[in-house]
């Protein structure tokens, strides 16, 4: 569904990505793990056109989307949940969700999606009129996910959904991600929490200072000696 070929990104003189290749097949959960500064977020941001690509190509459903603008990419069904949730704190939950469905002008389809989001996140439904900024971290993450679902993504890209959340909430969020995936949405997940991510992923990539150093199925990577040492803290 999404294919990245030889993606390089430079920030000024710094090489953030040094030519990575990735493949995200339809209907799967793919994860990209790595330490701080490995280039995980840069990869996602390049896909949606928020970061300028130095070289390389990105294909989505067989079409070259390299260098297209963000608005067109979002409309074609790739939705990014940015790092740190980035909900709109001064707006109500309802308004946040409305903005998530910004590209959909048809009221009927919009209402259906809202209904869908409310079934996935009953917590949001209870609090539609509450200001999003008053939410706890976990609820904000749910809102961020719900807001992304309002755009009816075919490919949902999550940038560190576990950031700053309590372990129990993280578990909850990851279950929700699996539910979303089962409803037919392809998921590309970026995580520092390698264990949690690899456990639910069908396939994983390990990124290290701009290069992909390992790839394999989630289970394979979890049992890989190097991964265990470097990312799971298990010798």
């Amino acid at each position, binding site marked *: 569904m999404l294919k990245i070929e030889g993606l390089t990104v430079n920030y000024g003189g710094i090489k953030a990505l040094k030519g990575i290749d990735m493949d995200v097949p339809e209907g799967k959960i793919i994860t990209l793990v790595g330490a701080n500064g490995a280039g995980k977020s840069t990869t996602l941001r390049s896909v*949606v056109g*928020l970061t300028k690509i130095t070289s390389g190509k990105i294909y989505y459903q067989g079409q070259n989307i390299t260098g297209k*603008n*963000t*608005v067109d990419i*979002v*409309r074609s069904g790739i*939705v*990014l*949940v*940015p790092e740190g949730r*980035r*909900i*709109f*704190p*001064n*707006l109500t939950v309802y*308004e946040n969700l*409305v*903005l*998530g469905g*910004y*590209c959909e*002008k048809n009221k009927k389809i919009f*209402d259906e999606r*809202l*209904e869908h989001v*409310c*079934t996935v996140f*009953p917590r949001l*439904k209870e609090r*539609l*009129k509450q200001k999003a900024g008053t939410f706890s971290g976990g609820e904000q993450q749910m809102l961020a996910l719900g*807001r992304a679902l309002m*755009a009816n993504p075919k490919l949902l890209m999550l940038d560190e959904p576990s950031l700053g959340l309590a372990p129990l909430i993280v578990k909850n969020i990851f279950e929700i991600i699996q539910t979303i995936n089962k409803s037919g949405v392809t998921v590309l997940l970026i995580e520092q929490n390698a264990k949690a991510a690899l456990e639910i992923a069908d396939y994983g990539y390990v990124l290290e200072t701009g290069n992909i150093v390992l790839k394999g199925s989630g289970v394979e990577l979890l049992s890989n000696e190097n991964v265990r040492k470097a990312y799971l803290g298990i010798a």
Partner: protein
Amino acid sequence: MKNDQKTRRILSIALIALVGIVLFLCNQYLDSYQLRIINLCGIYITLGLSLNLIYGFTGLFSLGHAGFMAVGAYTTALLTMPPQLKQMNFFLEPIVPWLANVEVGFFWALIIAGSITGLIGFLIGAPVLKLRDDYLAIATLGFSEIIRIVFTNLQNVTNGPLGLKGLPPYTTIWWSWGFALVSILFMAYLFKGSYGRAFIAIREDEIAAEAMGINIFRHKILSFTIGSFMAGIGGGLLAHLMGTIDPLMFRFLLTFNILLIVVLGGMGSISGTVISAIVVTVSMEYLRFLDGPMNFLIFKTDGIPGMRMVIFSLLLMIVILFFQRGLMGSKELSWDFILGPKDKTLNLPEEE
């Protein structure tokens, strides 16, 4: 009372009618000094809303409002002044021939002025809106000064530092409040729709807004252009209320006055701007007694010019301390606020 859309619409129309009647009575019975203050209130509502659109709603910290108002004021003035009056004004250097004999009606002059200001806002915005926050403020402030300096030196178009005198006093209560009303209705309409929501999303979080498929740059430009358009009209109205304009009128202080209205009323609140425009304009006038000599029994002071500004600043500080987000915050004094929320029937799944 039934709490629905129709009641609200009737209430809104009734309120507008009431304001209309009050204005009519004011027009009949008040003297010209008081009328001038009421006029100023109306104009400052338009101007406050225009800056609130740019700064309060879209989050673009722009300090170029005086410049836009100058463009609007000069355009309207030059378009409405009769040829003889122009000849009288331009005694140092004659006016350029293509402007010498132009004379259009006040309404069209205002619309043209707004459009030209909007165009200039667009041209300035296109390069400048790539900047953010303080940098944007400095850049727009710079452009506003550039406009003023250009107007000071374009002797044969703007009459330079001499300014334009004897403008026909077209601005009446109906003009100033008419445009204020149109601005209020326009803003209320805008922020019900998707454009308004996109503006607010950009203010809240640009990256998230962009990730949602909102074209950031286009919406920023749009907001800036509409804001400039309104500022141009406000400038035109102000020019014909004052009767005299010169480039010195459009210094930073003017931008500051409007910024004050926006911040005091609450950034991102239409009703807040309306209330604070009226409060600020009226109190600026009624605090004038502070400039005069005062007698405190124990000691007497001679008139201290500028004393009211000191007091006014103090009042402002107190308001900012206790209402950090302005009088209204980003809330609206709407019918929902007064009557309680509408029974919105969202099509939501029932709780099990």
